[in-house]
């Protein structure tokens, strides 16, 4: 009866829900205690568990990782490439190195990106990111399941981390509501736990965040991201450039996976995404090739301005020519999928006995490949702050030191998120003055290395 009641939770009033939650929790007799409970065993949550286990100061803390799905099946490095991949920046790689997961990824497969080219369909403006003489990588393209496999291996080795699969959080109670000293949570299967600190790594619809009562700023972009694994023509060479072209409906990106394979991330309107997903393979491939090559309505003034700017900087027109990505010649069967895009930011990441990481705290457009990297940077900051706090005798759930984590995260995340959101807005229009301005901005950045390096630092860590 009670569970039936909860399933109708959407319709039930908050008061009723709280009443049910109280009853559910009060009926339990014993609940196991952990120092830290992580709700959500996705990329960020599992990496957090591995990083906590690896930290010397936190070595005596018992950690529980809750994951709603079945046990992770592992990753087959000889199997077909997967369609969900991430562009991992230097900071995140440092994190993997520090928890001993990078060697695992290195031993499997990943693709370093030496250069990134970003251009658009309404003018000639273009920007290329690379390190001097391609000395180091701009980012690495890694399959999400491989990252998960690498960090899971570390988690399984850790003596102080326990993983619970098929564990869905039903309700959460925090000290600020109960006046108690622990955070409490109950799973859908009836088990319940208490902890010093409950970490919400449970994604954009975080239950932990709802209980924290923080304000959330969110908007739906009414866009979908279409992903697929693509086969390339023989002209791909070593395929070490990541390509992104802004089209009026949203950016289309080609991320290298191997010399002959690339991963597609195409952000577009919901209807076009649906259409693309259902196209026959040959026509889908044609649509992709067209997306990277077709000239849209040109804004001639913008083209002239870009030319003028380039001549001012003494650039030859030939140097500025757009490189074109390799021709796509096939799509892997069953690799097409789509996911909704949106923007979300929690006004606060912490409260007494609880903290948020990753998508539970922030969600961005994938156009700069920042989403998961911001999540990994949360992990670094949170582990740092928890270790410093514990070494200074603070309770793990004490906001006095958790607030330091929040401050560090906000200082890093907010500018990046605003930047990404701004780019999305800036490129969603064909209005010629905007095209002119953004073209000039991009070309100016391309021609002024200090500014370009600033952006690279921000985005690539």
């Amino acid at each position: 009866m009670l569970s039936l009641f909860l399933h109708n939770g959407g319709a039930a009033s908050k008061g009723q829900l709280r009443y049910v939650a109280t009853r559910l929790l009060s009926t339990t007799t014993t609940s196991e205690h952990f120092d830290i409970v992580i709700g959500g065993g996705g990329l960020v949550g599992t990496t957090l568990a591995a990083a906590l286990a690896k930290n010397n100061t936190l070595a005596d803390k018992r950690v529980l990782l809750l994951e709603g799905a079945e046990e992770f099946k592992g990753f087959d490095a000889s199997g077909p490439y997967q369609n969900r991949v991430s562009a991992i920046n230097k900071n995140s790689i440092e994190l993997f190195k520090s928890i001993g997961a990078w060697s695992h990824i290195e031993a499997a497969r990943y693709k370093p990106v030496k250069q990134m080219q970003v251009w658009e369909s309404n003018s000639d403006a273009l920007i290329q990111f690379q390190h001097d003489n391609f000395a180091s990588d701009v980012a690495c393209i890694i399959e999400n399941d491989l990252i998960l496999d690498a960090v899971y291996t570390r988690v399984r080795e850790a003596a102080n981390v326990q993983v619970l699969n098929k564990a869905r959080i039903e309700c959460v109670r925090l000290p600020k509501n109960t006046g108690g000293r622990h955070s409490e949570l109950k799973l859908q299967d009836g088990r319940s736990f208490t902890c010093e600190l409950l970490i919400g790594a449970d994604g954009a619809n975080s239950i932990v965040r709802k209980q924290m009562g923080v304000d959330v700023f969110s908007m739906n972009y009414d866009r979908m991201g279409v992903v697929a694994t693509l086969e390339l023509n023989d002209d791909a060479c070593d395929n070490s450039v990541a390509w992104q072209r802004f089209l009026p409906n949203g950016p289309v990106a080609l991320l290298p996976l191997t010399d002959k394979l690339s991963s597609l991330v195409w952000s577009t309107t919901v209807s076009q995404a649906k259409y693309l997903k259902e196209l026959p393979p040959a026509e889908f491939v044609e649509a992709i090739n067209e997306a990277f090559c077709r000239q849209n309505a040109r804004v001639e003034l913008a083209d002239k301005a870009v030319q003028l700017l380039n001549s001012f900087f003494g650039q030859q027109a030939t140097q500025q020519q757009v490189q074109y990505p390799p021709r796509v010649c096939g799509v892997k069967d069953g690799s097409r999928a789509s996911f909704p895009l949106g923007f979300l930011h929690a006004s606060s990441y912490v409260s007494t006995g609880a903290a948020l990481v990753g998508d539970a705290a922030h969600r961005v457009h994938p156009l700069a490949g920042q989403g998961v990297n911001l999540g990994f940077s949360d992990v670094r900051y949170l582990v740092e702050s928890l270790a410093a706090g514990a070494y200074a005798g603070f309770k793990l759930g004490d906001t006095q030191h958790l607030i330091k984590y929040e401050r560090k995260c906000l200082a890093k995340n907010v500018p990046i998120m605003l930047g990404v959101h701004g780019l999305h807005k800036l490129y969603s229009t064909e209005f010629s003055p905007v095209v002119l301005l953004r073209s000039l901005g991009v070309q100016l950045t391309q021609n002024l290395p200090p500014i370009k390096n600033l952006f690279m630092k921000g985005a690539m860590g």
Partner: protein
Amino acid sequence: MLRNSVYPHSKLLQTLAKVLGRCNNSNSSTGGGGSATLDADTKREVEHHENQATDWWNQNGTMEALHALNEIRVPFIRDGIVARGNVKSHYVNTTKVLKGQCLLEVGCGGGLLTEQLARLGAQVTGIDLADKLIAAAKVHLTELSPELSSNVKYKMEPVNQHAKANCERYDAVIVSEVLEHVDDKVALLEACVRSLRPGGSIFITTLNKTLPMWVAGVAVSEYVLNLVPRGTHHWDKMISPLDVQRILDTMNCQTVLVNGSTYDFWNNSWRWINTTQMCYALQAVKDSE
């Protein structure tokens, strides 16, 4: 020129001293408790702090700045003890870093610092003259930090009495945000040092006796911004680090470290600064001959 700039200051001081005096008088008429053996001034200080007893553990209440101070004073004490080489190396960088250390906290109040040091494994005795605060500390310990109950002892007792019974017993004595409320600093420090074992450290944090400190710490924070309850701090009781050092020198305690600190009220956090003009933390080591 110089006289011109000094004169308004002294005038200002006088005026505000009057305001302070009024405030104190009105305070002393309220509240009860306190030991009969205490002199009137000490009694007033004790009562003033007892009035905050219920709000002591509220992180967003009147003791907000004191909560935030833990962010720097706990590491100062911890690292000070570690630096003397009294901590086994395998405890360093763990949450048991102070395991086996026997600490005395003089003027522990509601136990903000006491509990936090105990959480690092130390055996901490907290003493205070305010029985309401000791009661609040005990309640908090049993209700919200029962895991520390074997590490913490609270007692309402004057320090000289405690030192008589616990001569040269403690590895470290902590006098945090207390000196500025005490008239007879020599007697207090003498008792603290007596209870300290040779080679042990005494840690003091307090406000400096400087004009910037008085303006920011008393005039602005008590009367303009209301960050601290009015009548908490008094000019004539503030003491400079050099004076503390001189007193400790006469008791065979070598000052090894003086760090300046300041409070940023806008984000409720403390930080170390390059000057002791505002607040300071001081560590002195008792000679072991």
